[in-house]
């Protein structure tokens, strides 16, 4: 297999990126439908079931509706910032996806249609192989604050502003615990590459970080839920207090973009949980990894991610919302110390074992 020239490399990466983004956007629209239906079932309702069979076309209808709504900017708003905010939000949300592996490598078929250098080449399902992938994720997730702050501030509306401040403070607080919960798996894998962390968990369920790093996994789940602002941590959008938080003034496509950013974040967080703690595309038992000569990695990966997404919806249907001071106290006084202690413990055990 010859090495690739940089235009070829660029082409592969671009195609991958386009695929991933398209897939994410599709998943977003499906998720809106699934979430509404599932929530409805949990609450003994039916949910949207009119548009198309079982209401399956509901996301399409929503999309069309949002697309044709009037573009509106409040008079007192800072116009440019108001328009830029959703773009920033969705951009940062999509940027995070770049370094996440989605399940092993896919070998290109030997079709004549394909150019010579593509035939039979295994392509890893990951857009960028970054040496500091985890750090990059952390960086991008910190950037996510900008979209929210901008959106809240530019609307010149006190609900928006308070919502944005709360939201950003919450994200800051839980980002710390989120980042610290990754350190355990990083220590085990001795690498900042996400694919290394996944590889480190190969070989069965007992190697998964969810098992041997259970406290980190718990911390990650708490922090991630808060990070994406889902119940029970959806204080920024506490409609009883803040109308709708930072996106109160948004409508039409800009609202759709913000919404999309949130869902993409949720999906990202689930994918990350799969990669970091649930063994990525590795099956719980080695014998289940492939069937009839076909590698089932992608399937396992999708299944785990789906389960986590379901968990988020389940939480939303079950739990009440926290108070703001409870939220902050939990983040700073419970999660962060616990994460630090866990890191110390992990480091000590590793040192002791490799002595």
């Amino acid at each position: 297999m010859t090495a690739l020239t940089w235009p070829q490399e660029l082409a592969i990466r671009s195609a991958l990126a386009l695929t991933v983004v398209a897939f994410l956007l599709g998943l977003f629209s499906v998720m809106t439908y699934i979430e509404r239906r599932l929530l409805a079932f949990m609450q003994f309702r039916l949910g949207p079931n009119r548009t198309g069979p079982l209401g399956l076309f509901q996301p399409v209808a929503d999309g069309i509706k949002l697309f044709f709504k009037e573009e509106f900017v409040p008079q007192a708003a800072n116009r440019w910032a108001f328009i830029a905010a959703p773009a920033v939000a969705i951009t940062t949300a999509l940027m995070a996806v770049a370094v996440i592996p989605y399940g092993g490598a896919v070998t290109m078929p030997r079709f004549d249609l394909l150019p010579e250098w593509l035939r039979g080449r295994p392509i890893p399902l990951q857009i960028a192989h970054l040496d500091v992938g985890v750090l990059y994720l952390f960086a991008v997730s910190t950037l996510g604050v900008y979209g929210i702050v901008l959106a809240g501030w530019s609307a010149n509306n006190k609900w928006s502003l308070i919502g944005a401040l709360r939201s950003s403070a919450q994200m800051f607080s839980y980002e710390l615990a989120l980042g610290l919960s990754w350190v355990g798996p990083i220590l085990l894998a001795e690498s900042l590459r996400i694919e290394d962390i996944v590889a480190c968990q190969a070989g069965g369920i007992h190697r998964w970080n969810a098992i041997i790093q259970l406290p980190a996994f718990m911390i990650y789940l708490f922090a991630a839920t808060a990070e994406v602002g889902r119940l029970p941590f959806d204080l920024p959008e506490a409609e009883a207090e803040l109308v709708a938080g930072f996106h109160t003034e948004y409508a039409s496509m800009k609202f759709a973009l913000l919404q999309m950013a949130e869902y993409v974040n949720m999906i990202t967080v689930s994918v990350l949980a799969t990669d970091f703690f649930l063994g990525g595309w590795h099956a719980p038992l080695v014998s289940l990894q492939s069937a009839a000569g076909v590698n089932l990695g992608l399937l396992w990966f999708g299944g785990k991610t789906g389960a986590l997404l379901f968990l988020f919806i389940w939480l939303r249907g079950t739990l009440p919302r926290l108070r703001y001071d409870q939220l902050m106290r939990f983040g700073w006084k419970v999660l962060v110390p616990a994460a630090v202690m866990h890191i110390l413990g992990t480091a000590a055990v590793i040192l002791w074992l490799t002595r």
Partner: protein
Amino acid sequence: MAETILFYALAITAFSAAFAVVLQKSALGSAFALIVVLCSLSAIYGLLGSPILATLQIVIYAGAVMVLFLFVIMLLDVRREKGGGGPRSFVPLALLFAGLLVLQVGAVLVGSELVPQSAPFDGSAKAFARRLFSQDYVYVFEATSVLIVAALAGALALARRRR
């Protein structure tokens, strides 16, 4: 080739955004321009072979410092700067000094000999960490953590509303 194109694009972006930082009338505009500078610098670090510094630049600067700036700007509701006032003689003097500095250092830069890639350069996270946690820097590194705690306490003490 791609590297060169990318570098010049980023350099031009950074430079013009830096100008915008200085020339913008509103503090918020300056802040956004600065964010652009920071992000393009981060990319340049990546080009220069330091992915770790590139990401750290984003995490610390774009992720923390600039958000802090934005918070303060938003909280204090900074109005547009009043033009004029103050000693006028500043502008020529400032420009003169800055120009002199550029000339001097530029002269050094032109005359000097850079020796790039005399040895294979390893800017990976591992190499970086090995150097950082070596005997030479580990105490400095620990000292910076003390510095951060001190800064944190100082900031709290300063910004707290006194009763």
